[in-house]
């Protein structure tokens, strides 16, 4: 069954090539892209099932066994995250058909989308630290190619910061991998786990671990290192924002979880303290940033940062309870971020702007859609029957169990503050009356629905019939906008998690147990038990 691991990595790569070479227009390529994502979701689901049934799955590349060759490993955490990433990839690939205009998609949008997902999946599945770096690069270069084409001045400006700061992180990661190899002579993570405690110079190991903390911290947008994220995420097309917000930072979080539970366990107290402080600061700073903005995309970008803090809390506290809660939160966070970004894209289509001041009256014109947004917003905040509630409940339990009152206080305060920007979006964009049409053209104050038409009128010169058509789909409360498909799909998944959190909680428990006691992982990779003689 270990071929399943290779299949999960290969599907997006093959689909990327197919989507690039496929004859026919945009529609045909998009169809290839969606079919590829469906196949990946299927393979990832099979992988997850296999890992749940039979434990850690291992595949050795090129017939070189563990410490020598590159190994792919699926433990419960990796398999779970691959499944979630595939789901988000599917949602984005459907969303992009309508969202990304043909003249931009012609630059290979679908291919790079799949390559990015390949990078994410590869990073979740690899058992080799240098290979992890390579997957990070695959992800990074595809993300560049997704963000820049079709870009205007603002996006170029954001892209410069995103790219430059991510390259700095890459160099730090590469250097620390080099030093790690110098210390131990191996790159296989399971092998490293066995060899690092035996290294003479433990101080140097701590130094290297701090380098890893910084490199992955930049990728994950942890507190003092997050500046690239709010500088760039709001400049992207919505499909790309949703994809990045859902997946990119989480790979950084995953890498932190993996390296600091498997490799750098020697100086636990120091690292735990640093991670805990950074996690709490990330939570608070992120949510404060979200409160200061009026552009919906910037609000959500800061929410992404805030949620990274919640995901690192498990590593900071170090208990099985907290780790499991953080993993649950990670799954919830990935899905809800993708959903919210897609929703605000629809809000902006209906209302003509991302600026809260220019929006309004959407509840009157589009009640069904408003309910979808409310559902997603409440899921993010953590109102009881929704998925965020279980995640935060588990985190609060872990906070109580840890006995650190200030952790608990920060957690609750951040949760409360998370509510504020979401409620502001709700009251500004949905509840208040639509602002009078600033153009003085066809939009009258009394007819809020005209907001969208006004915007479309502006753009009609530039974009012609297409702009008009999409705006009609947006304002007309109808389900004809293809972007509603992934939105409704993700909402149902979140609702499902909220109503029946049991199986995901179990999965998260398994994943946390696998992190805190990596023996199964190490034995699986090195073949010290029966599976790979």
């Amino acid at each position, binding site marked *: 069954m270990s071929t399943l691991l290779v299949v999960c990595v290969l599907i997006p790569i093959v689909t990327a090539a197919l989507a690039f070479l496929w004859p026919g227009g945009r529609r045909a390529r998009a169809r290839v892209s969606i079919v590829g994502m469906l196949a990946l979701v299927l393979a990832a689901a099979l992988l997850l099932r296999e890992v749940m049934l039979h434990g850690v799955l291992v595949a050795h590349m090129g017939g070189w066994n563990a410490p020598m060759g590159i190994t792919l490993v699926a433990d419960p955490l990796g398999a779970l995250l691959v499944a979630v990433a595939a789901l988000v990839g599917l949602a984005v690939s459907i969303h992009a058909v309508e969202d990304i205009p043909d003249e931009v998609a012609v630059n290979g949008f679908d291919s790079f989308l799949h390559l990015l997902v390949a990078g994410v999946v590869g990073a979740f599945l690899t058992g080799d630290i240098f290979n992890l770096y390579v997957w990070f690069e695959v992800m990074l270069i595809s993300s560049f190619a997704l963000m820049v084409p079709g870009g205007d001045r603002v996006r170029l400006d954001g*892209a410069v910061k995103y790219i430059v700061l991510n390259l700095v992180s890459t*160099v730090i990661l590469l250097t620390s991998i080099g030093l790690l190899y110098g210390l131990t002579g191996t790159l296989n993570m399971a092998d490293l786990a066995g060899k690092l405690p035996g290294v003479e110079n433990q101080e140097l190991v701590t130094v290297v671990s701090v380098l890893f903390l910084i490199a992955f911290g930049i990728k994950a947008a942890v507190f003092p290192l997050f500046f690239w994220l709010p500088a760039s995420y709001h400049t992207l097309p919505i499909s790309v924002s949703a994809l990045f917000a859902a997946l990119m930072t989480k790979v950084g979080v995953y890498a932190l979880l993996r390296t600091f539970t498997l490799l750098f366990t020697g100086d636990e107290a120091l690292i735990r303290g640093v991670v805990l402080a950074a996690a709490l600061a990330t939570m608070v700073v992120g949510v404060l940033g979200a409160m200061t*903005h009026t*552009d919906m995309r910037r609000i959500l970008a800061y929410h992404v940062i805030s949620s990274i803090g919640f995901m690192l809390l498990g590593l900071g506290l170090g208990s099985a309870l907290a780790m499991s809660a953080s993993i649950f939160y990670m799954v919830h966070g990935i899905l809800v971020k993708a959903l919210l970004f897609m929703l605000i894209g629809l809000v902006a289509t209906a209302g003509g702007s991302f600026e809260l001041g220019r929006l309004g009256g959407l509840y009157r014109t589009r009640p069904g859609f408003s309910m979808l947004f409310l559902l997603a917003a409440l899921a993010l905040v953590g109102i009881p029957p929704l998925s965020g509630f279980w995640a935060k409940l588990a985190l609060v339990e872990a906070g109580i169990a840890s006995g650190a009152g200030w952790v608990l206080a920060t957690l609750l305060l951040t949760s409360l503050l998370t509510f504020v920007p979401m409620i502001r979006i709700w009251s500004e964009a949905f509840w208040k009356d639509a602002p009078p049409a*600033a153009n003085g053209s066809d939009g009258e104050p009394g007819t809020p629905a005209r907001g969208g038409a006004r915007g479309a009128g*502006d*753009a009609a010169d530039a974009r012609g019939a297409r702009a008009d058509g999409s*705006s009609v789909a947006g304002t007309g409360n109808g389900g004809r906008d293809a972007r509603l498909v992934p939105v409704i799909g993700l909402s149902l998944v979140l609702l499902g998690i909220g109503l029946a959190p049991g199986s995901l909680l179990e999965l998260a428990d398994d994943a946390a147990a696998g992190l805190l006691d990596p023996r199964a992982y190490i034995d699986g990779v090195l073949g010290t038990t029966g599976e790979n003689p």
Partner: protein
Amino acid sequence: MEIVLGGLVGVLMAASVWLMLSRDLVKFLFGLILIGNVANLVIFLAGGLTLGAPPLIGAEEPAGGYANALPQALVLTAIVIGFALVSFTLILAMRAWQALGTTDVDEMVIAERRGAYTWVAGDRLGSVRSASDEPSERPDDEPGDRPVDRPDGEPGDGAGGGAGSDAGARS
């Protein structure tokens, strides 16, 4: 040999950090290129140096020992990846310079300015109005997907920008 290379790593690292602290994007990128090479040297050095021994050997071990080929393979991979990233970034920097009219990172702030980005429904490319636009103004410049070879023509930006470049010249 290790001492020499170690010293070289130190000097190059210092030089690249100095370059990367610059406010000029181009200097920063030179620093980034340099530090990428420093990272490669670090891998090479950390993998251990072996003088005059072959990395590829036959069935029996040669008398003079053999060199570890893995660090070189890693460095090669890193060089290829680094080359791709650097080429992309240089092109991006050029596009950014064409579009923004500056390489001074203190002036490259249009994305982060409040209300910098006015998105218009239906226009999925998100054509830009300049940051100080009133909502009522129509987008008067070209759709943003063509680079505009002129500085950000905003009122109030001149003073700040001028001060920025003065400071840049001093440093």
